């Protein structure tokens, strides 16, 4: 039996609804934020915020309203309003159409609660890597099903006084409901496995912790860890951890250097992989 057929329809509906809510929220950002987001008592006025805090950091706190930032390997993020951020990976759009939204629902003092939603179309990317020869990550004869990627996570961020340190807890679910028949697709390439595993299962769930702290006005240290449960194999899981130091001499330019480690149970067994990360970021 195809396990994808076991996908609970109510869960797909819920995820899709949440994705739509994210996008709709962005479309009505002004109206939404004026009703739902009272000015935070302990918020740091934008003018006094450290330069590094102008940059998006994956927490429940969206990028400041009106700001756009992007990196070579990071999504382009747009602060639609104080509480809504839209994002996409423009370079990947031709082969991996994607859009994401971060919606902050609550901001009280040091606490922010948000949801993050992403809608993707993974089929074209998987078809691209189904090829003969170099970079053939999947067999060329793979019949990749038409599918949608639906991701939703719940984010809680706590900021320290003066917002020098932020800690974020997240819990989320990824689904990739199939809209057509196709082969089982397990892309067990390091760092991609957990991101596409939902296509060959009834879904993946994850939880993680992340933190950023300002080392100085121009240097930020970030670290995160996430555990994903991947039912491709019995008791499958993946722990991904990363850290980086970002240098942001201004609100317009940044340089980030770090690493990511993925340690988990693949179909081939438990493996560990390390990857250096480097990014050049721009914002305006």
């Amino acid at each position: 039996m195809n396990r994808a057929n076991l996908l609970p329809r109510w869960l797909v509906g819920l995820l899709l609804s949440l994705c739509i809510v994210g996008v709709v929220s962005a479309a009505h950002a002004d109206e939404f934020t004026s009703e739902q987001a009272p000015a935070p008592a302990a918020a740091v006025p934008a003018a006094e915020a450290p330069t590094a805090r102008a940059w998006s950091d994956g927490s429940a706190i969206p990028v400041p309203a009106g700001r756009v930032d992007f990196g070579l390997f990071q999504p382009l993020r747009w602060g639609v309003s104080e509480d809504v951020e839209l994002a996409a990976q423009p370079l990947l759009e031709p082969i991996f159409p994607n859009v994401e939204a971060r919606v902050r629902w609550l901001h009280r003092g040091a606490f922010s609660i948000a949801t993050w939603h992403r809608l993707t179309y993974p089929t074209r990317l998987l078809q691209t890597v189904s090829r003969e020869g170099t970079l053939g990550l999947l067999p060329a004869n793979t019949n990749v099903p038409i599918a949608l990627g639906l991701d939703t996570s719940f984010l809680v961020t706590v900021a320290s006084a003066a917002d020098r340190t932020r800690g974020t807890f997240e819990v989320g679910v990824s689904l990739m409901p199939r809209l057509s028949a196709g082969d089982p697709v397990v892309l067990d390439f390091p760092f991609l496995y957990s991101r596409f595993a939902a296509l060959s299962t009834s879904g993946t769930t994850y939880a993680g912790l992340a933190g950023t702290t300002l080392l100085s006005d121009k240097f930020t240290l970030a670290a995160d860890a996430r555990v994903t449960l991947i039912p491709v194999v019995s008791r499958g899981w993946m722990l991904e951890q990363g850290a980086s130091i970002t240098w942001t001499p201004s609100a317009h330019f940044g340089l980030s250097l770090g690493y990511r480690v993925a340690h988990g149970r693949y179909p081939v067994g438990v493996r560990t992989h390390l990857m250096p990360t480097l990014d050049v970021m721009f914002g305006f």
Partner: protein
Amino acid sequence: MSSAADRQSHTLRRLRSLAVLGALCACACDPFGTGFDDSEPATLYAAPGATPAPAPTRPLRILDWNIKFGGGRLDFFFDCFGDRVLMSRAEVLANLEGIARKVRQVDPDVMFIQEVDVNAKRSAFVDQLAWLVAHTDLHYAAYASQWRADFVPSDGLGPMDDGIAILSRWPLDHATRLALPLRTDQDALTQYFYLHRAVLRARVQLPGHGDLWLVNVHTDAYGQDGTKRRHIERFQEEMDALDDAGELVVGGGDLNTLPPGTTKLFDFPDTVCTNEDFVADDYRPDAGWLDGLYSRYSPFVPTADYAADNAEYFSHSVDGRGSWNRELDYLFTNGTWVPGSGVVHQDERTGMATMPLSDHAPSSAELELP
């Protein structure tokens, strides 16, 4: 006392940190785990509840077989007859059952195998060696990986662990994987993910008959840079070292070249690939490469017998719908073969059809007990 304990604790912490750093460096320097040491212990296998066979009472029957990772005659992309890359678990187990049936029929005491997958996506992650030691009377094995990568990012192959093995009725020891030179006609990235071939050497202590050393190899097939010749020479060096030490040795494997006295050396009818990466169709440059082995050791098929009828000993064909058309598989010893015992099991004449089981036919011979 307290400061000594503190120092010890501090040292332990530093060692732990170094271990973590070392592991991270290893991940970074060999991110997909494809590398090997020049010499390292082979992986030993034993069937659950295995007990050594009693002392042999007849000549030792030695079998050599390239089992093509349990792929049978599915039309794989590299044969250029089809586009298959991955097998289902059911396909792998069905093919292994055919191989085990042939092994049980030949009833060998020792077996060399090549192209056995122990943890590869293409063969549904079936540990074929563990399966074979559990489903034949050869309950002990030593394994040397030749192609290992957490992920081969080419042709959809993905995770790979394929290699060569020696199976035996008796436990093996001194099992060692000896790295062979890499191909030099590939770019660094291709070479990193490509096969890292090896010689597998092990000893079996025959109850009541002393030691027998075993050497298995699967040499390069497609290189245009003389790598195959270096592999053959290295294989012979291992046999020579044991022979010089006065040991009884049997060496065998898939040498990917033709014996002296072969009449057809190129332009085989089942070669349909046009991609040079997968073409091994002209053996004329290999002339004389096996002379050293043939002059020092006894081949399982005497040269005169082979010269009299090449086709009787053909052991390979790319196309399962065709017929065996070249001999690539060998057994050599510094002992004595039972005259006339050298056989290539091509078809029902030796018990059952083998063409559907692999692109190589098994070869066997009987060794006089020391």
